[in-house]
């Protein structure tokens, strides 16, 4: 069956699904994989701007499904990577314009020519999520170390398991190491205890992610960025490499430095 379909999901909106999808796409491409990323968030498309490809769109996913465009015509090639493509979502339609069966059909065709097909799932648990889930071989669940995001992740995980697409793996996004140390934020261990899912990535909070989305150049292309490095590690784990988790502890806050200084450590 060729390529593998990986769906990126979360339940709650705004936790970083699209950012994760874009960065995984870039990282997988930079690892030499042939990759397509599909924006399944019909009506609220965003993957194009995060990847800096918004001004090249001619056709979209709904055009493919409704036969106005050939699959290849709607695929937008990335500026930097010859083997990375985007299929954008339609902006003027809604989730009902595509069915889960449509998604299976499209991805089955893509599997023949690509190693990875990443699907950026919309938030929620309705049709859009069903569309993104149906063709998935694996699901990555993005969450933030925060009560509402983890709760929604749990709900989504239940639905993924019920659809026999489980167990899925977790990306904990926007972890603030200094807050975790102070006991003011859920740690990655806490999230693991609660959700009981394997963690495939821990992405530290990083201001460079905002700059990256401002400029349309995904953060993983910025070698200075810790979040970028963490996303790159996720991609390597996706392809089966055994990558140790980064030490997120190097950037000590002023407080810790002061304590260490005074303690003579």
């Amino acid at each position: 069956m060729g390529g593998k379909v990986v769906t990126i999901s979360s339940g709650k909106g705004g936790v970083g699904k699209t950012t994760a999808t874009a960065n995984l796409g870039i990282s997988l491409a930079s690892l030499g994989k042939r990759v397509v990323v599909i924006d399944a968030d019909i009506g609220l498309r965003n993957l194009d701007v995060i990847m800096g490809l918004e001004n090249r769109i001619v056709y979209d996913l709904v055009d493919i499904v409704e036969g106005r465009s050939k699959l290849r015509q709607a695929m937008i090639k990335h500026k930097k990577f010859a083997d990375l493509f985007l299929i954008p979502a339609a902006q003027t339609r809604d989730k009902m314009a595509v069915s889960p069966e449509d998604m299976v059909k499209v991805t089955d065709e893509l599997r023949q020519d690509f190693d990875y097909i990443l699907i950026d799932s919309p938030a929620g648990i309705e049709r859009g999520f069903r569309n993104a889930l149906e063709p998935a071989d694996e699901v990555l669940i993005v969450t933030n170390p925060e009560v509402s995001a983890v709760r929604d992740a749990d709900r989504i995980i239940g639905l993924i398991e019920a659809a026999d697409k489980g167990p899925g793996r977790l990306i904990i996004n926007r972890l603030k190491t200094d807050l975790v140390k102070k006991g003011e934020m859920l740690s990655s261990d806490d999230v693991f205890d609660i959700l009981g899912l394997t963690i495939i990535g821990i992405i530290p909070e990083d201001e460079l992610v905002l700059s990256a989305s401002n400029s349309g150049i995904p953060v993983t292309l910025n070698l200075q960025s810790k979040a970028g490095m963490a996303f790159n590690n996720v991609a390597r784990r996706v392809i089966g490499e055994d990558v140790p988790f980064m030490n997120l502890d190097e950037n000590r806050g002023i407080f810790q430095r002061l304590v260490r200084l005074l303690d003579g450590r």
Partner: protein
Amino acid sequence: MTNLLSRLFGRGKKGSGATAKDRLRFVLQHDRINLPPERMEEMKREILAVIVKYLVVDKDRVEIDLEQRDRSHSKLVAEIPVAINTPPSVSNSANQSAAAGANGANNSADKDRAADADGNEDAQTDDAVDADVDKETEDAPIEQRENGEETKDAKS
């Protein structure tokens, strides 16, 4: 020094991260079985109401909790301490069960059993008497309370 600074900056106490974890545990427990907390309490009260029709229960020590190993394995675990009249001898226990059987769910069964136990105290060893006495002092007020509540429940 570290401690002083920590205390100065309000550390050492339980952070909001731990609160978040507790709250999540609670909310997910109910999400996963699709039973909101209030309904769960209602269910516990109903379960208990049925049990006290048949048994004398130490209500203060009753624990009915949901245990979750993971998302798909939940079980309701109940620990309901029951007041037991230790039968002092085989013949007496036979009498007692016969009496309880005859009276069925009738409240007078409690009185019969209490009388039975009292009457047999002489025949028991010291240890058994102690245990019995302890139990009696423990049981007596509970029985009264239970009966009081039962009549209240019946009215409502």
